[in-house]
């Protein structure tokens, strides 16, 4: 590991150390419907400095900032798509825990069907050869 990389790793470790528990009561919106939307959206957004945690679950500082931004967008009247779009414009598709369907992820989304088809074809071939 080169020295800057080591420093960076240390830095990331510090930033992502759970400085406080996840979602704090003080962050929540007064309107239950709006808060429910915020929760649902937050569960699908990745805390980009954590390993595979949603911003709803993460105690990282950055996750708290993103939760706050998300709620601010919803309060300002954004639709779900607009609020998500706001974050993907700044953090990229990386922030989405569910990878969007686009040319770069076609293989990801369609390969499982392909795997199943190959498995089925192999089984059929097996039985045909035995007939």
């Amino acid at each position, binding site marked *: 590991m080169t020295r800057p*990389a080591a*420093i960076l790793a240390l830095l990331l470790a510090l930033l992502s150390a759970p400085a406080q528990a996840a979602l704090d009561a003080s962050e929540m919106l007064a309107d239950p419907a709006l808060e429910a939307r915020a929760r649902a959206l937050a569960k699908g957004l990745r805390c980009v400095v954590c390993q595979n945690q949603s911003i709803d679950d993460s105690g990282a500082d950055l996750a708290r900032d993103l939760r706050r931004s998300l709620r601010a967008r919803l309060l300002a009247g954004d639709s779900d798509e607009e609020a998500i779009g706001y974050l993907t414009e700044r953090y990229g598709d990386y922030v989405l825990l569910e990878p969007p369907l686009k040319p770069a992820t076609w293989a990801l989304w369609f390969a499982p069907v392909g795997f199943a088809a190959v498995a089925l074809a192999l089984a059929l071939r097996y039985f045909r050869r035995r007939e």
Partner: protein
Amino acid sequence: MRRLLFLAPLAVFAALAAWLYVGLGGDPARIPSPLVGRPAPAFAVDGLATADLEGPALVNIFASWCVPCRAEHPLLTHLAEEQGVAIYGIAYKDRPEAANAFLAELGNPYRKVGYDEDGGAGVEWGVTGVPETFVLDAGGMVAFKHTGPLTPDAVRRDLLPALGR
């Protein structure tokens, strides 16, 4: 045909192993910024706003509590004083007094400093950690993003060309 079928696992594995080898060279912490190729994001904090930014320039996100920021500071000073690069600083999640003390101690390479105490501007810039450095081209578009402390190598290889030098 039958023989080929028995070769298939080996072929798949070979492809996979080659890919894993290539993957070893990558850095999982690197997150490309979607801002590249777009105008600087709209933000306004105490001391700095989007309208203040005049490209070509660097926008450096720093904090007094950030250890690697100290490491890259001499490079920033060098760029500003020796090479005349315009650098704007955003003190991320830092009290203004602490940020000012940091600059008083190490010198201030910034043309202007914005104080982003609650990290709101950080979200606008898609910051994931400090330090981060953005390059704005002459037209004010984001041309490049560097994550982590700057190194002389990164300055020569990425930053200066992106600045148009």
